[in-house]
């Protein structure tokens, strides 16, 4: 019993350290603030008139939301994606300064060390996701307790899987600079091919979709797990799904479980 509590205490200590360090990291905080500002307030406002239901007589984009509402859930996912993957930089930091060696000799299993780190990264990512939710009033999205709880559950599951993914990357990339470049090279393509800034119109058949977009793009969008994460977040926040609503939760859950399993396997090599 005492041993179990001791192990859990170890997980808590690692979690707390990760959370405190990310909260003290001004760069990460500025990134967390600037993304909702740039994407929602600037890009959303800039493009909103071109996608609203009617612009001086011409119907452009007839869907039950505005463009700014359409991209809002995707920006929540973007903030989580960035923060989760980049929180794994702490692994490189710990390895570089020898802290990881001290942790590894502690009487706690490697998997629980990983769990503490992933939970810490996921917590920070959820806080950054909430930063986007803070501008929901601007977008005209009414948040209820039920909506917030559902969104938090999805955000945490997503953040858990993506932090594990960041740790897998960090295990292969040795330097800080390399990690930054590599993670950006992964994050932005994942985001842009997740149907985050343009919809694959659910009213179209597959044949019509393939006429509207090049086939390679449709295939990438459909095979990107983040597409289903963005879709599930849209379902929660604006009630719009391009795919089966249950698919998003299933894909995100499966992604989190498999990435954590892979991270556990990778973490043994450290």
């Amino acid at each position, binding site marked *: 019993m005492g041993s179990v509590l001791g192990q859990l205490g170890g997980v808590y200590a690692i979690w707390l350290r990760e959370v405190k360090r990310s*909260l*003290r990291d001004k760069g990460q905080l500025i990134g967390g603030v600037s993304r909702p500002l740039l994407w929602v307030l600037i890009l959303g406002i800039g493009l909103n008139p071109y996608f*609203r239901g009617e612009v001086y007589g011409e119907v452009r984009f007839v869907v039950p939301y505005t463009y700014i509402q359409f991209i809002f859930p995707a920006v929540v996912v973007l903030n989580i994606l960035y923060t989760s993957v980049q929180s794994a930089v702490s692994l490189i930091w710990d390895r570089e300064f020898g802290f990881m060696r001290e942790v590894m000799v502690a009487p706690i299993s490697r998997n629980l060390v990983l769990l503490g780190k992933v939970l810490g990264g996921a917590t920070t990512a959820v*806080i950054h996701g909430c930063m986007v939710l803070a501008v929901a009033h601007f977008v005209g999205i009414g948040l209820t307790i039920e909506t917030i709880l559902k969104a938090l559950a999805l955000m945490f599951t997503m953040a858990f899987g993506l932090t594990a993914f960041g740790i897998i990357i960090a295990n292969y990339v040795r330097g800080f600079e390399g990690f930054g470049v590599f993670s950006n090279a992964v994050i932005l393509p994942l985001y842009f091919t997740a149907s985050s800034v343009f919809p694959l119109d659910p009213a179209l058949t597959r044949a019509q979709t393939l006429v509207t977009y090049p086939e390679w793009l449709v295939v990438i969008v459909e095979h990107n797990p983040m597409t289903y994460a963005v879709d599930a977040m849209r379902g929660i926040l604006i009630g719009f799904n391009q795919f089966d609503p249950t698919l998003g939760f299933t894909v995100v859950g499966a992604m989190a479980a498999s990435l954590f399993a892979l991270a556990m396997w990778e973490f043994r090599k450290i």
Partner: protein
Amino acid sequence: MARDAASRPADRKRHWLFDFAPLAACFALLISLGFLPPDTSSAEVDATGRLSVCMPSNYPPLVTGNAEAPGFEVELVNEIADRLGWRLNIVTNAAMGRDFNPRNWRINRAQCQMLAGGIVMSATTQSFLDTTRPHLQTGWALISRSDAALADIDGQIGFYAGLTGLDRIGLGQYLRQSGISPKIVNTANALRSDLERGTIAGGVTEGLLAASMADDNDLNVTLLGEPLEQFSLGLGFWKGDVTLQRKVSSVLDQMWADGTIETIAERYGLDSVFLCSPNGASCG
């Protein structure tokens, strides 16, 4: 040593405060920025001092065309404009009362900033309009001299489509399943006169219109329930005109609170069956 132990909780508190202060500042900044005006729709109306509202030309009891009692929604938007210090400009549009698809109304933001006179909160209308919370509810209704159910009425049934946005396909399927082949009429007056002459035993039309006919002619009105839907009615705004929608919604909240909406509804014989609760929870 003893002093160190005593000062530790205070130090910890200070550390936590130090850790959370930047995060709290970030949230405060984002929440306050969230209250920036997202569009110019309200400012445009303020600048001209005039609110243009597109409405059907005649849709009793919502729009009557009678100067003495112009209709529930005309009085409603008049009161809203008065309270906000705007002049009201009503742009009548005959297509609004006739055509099923709101996209065929041929109205655009150059003509009016707001839409009223029976804006049903269906997926079709909400695909291109933002709306206030509902203030009325309606659905397909049976109007007849007897209180018999639709399937038990002996004789021909008339049908007038009336208010746009109601599900005519669903009604068509329902009537076919009930073995009813209605006589379709083009105006409310035609339905009324057919009922008066007895050429039809009953009529199916939109509930509010049926209520206003029943008031004049001592007829029974029954809202048709499952599987047919009940629909909520509100005021419509162009997608993205969030500031105007918020301003009008806050005046509507005041009007619910001081009883103005109930008073206007009473004047047009709209009882609790049709009137929503102030938060719109009892509608649709």
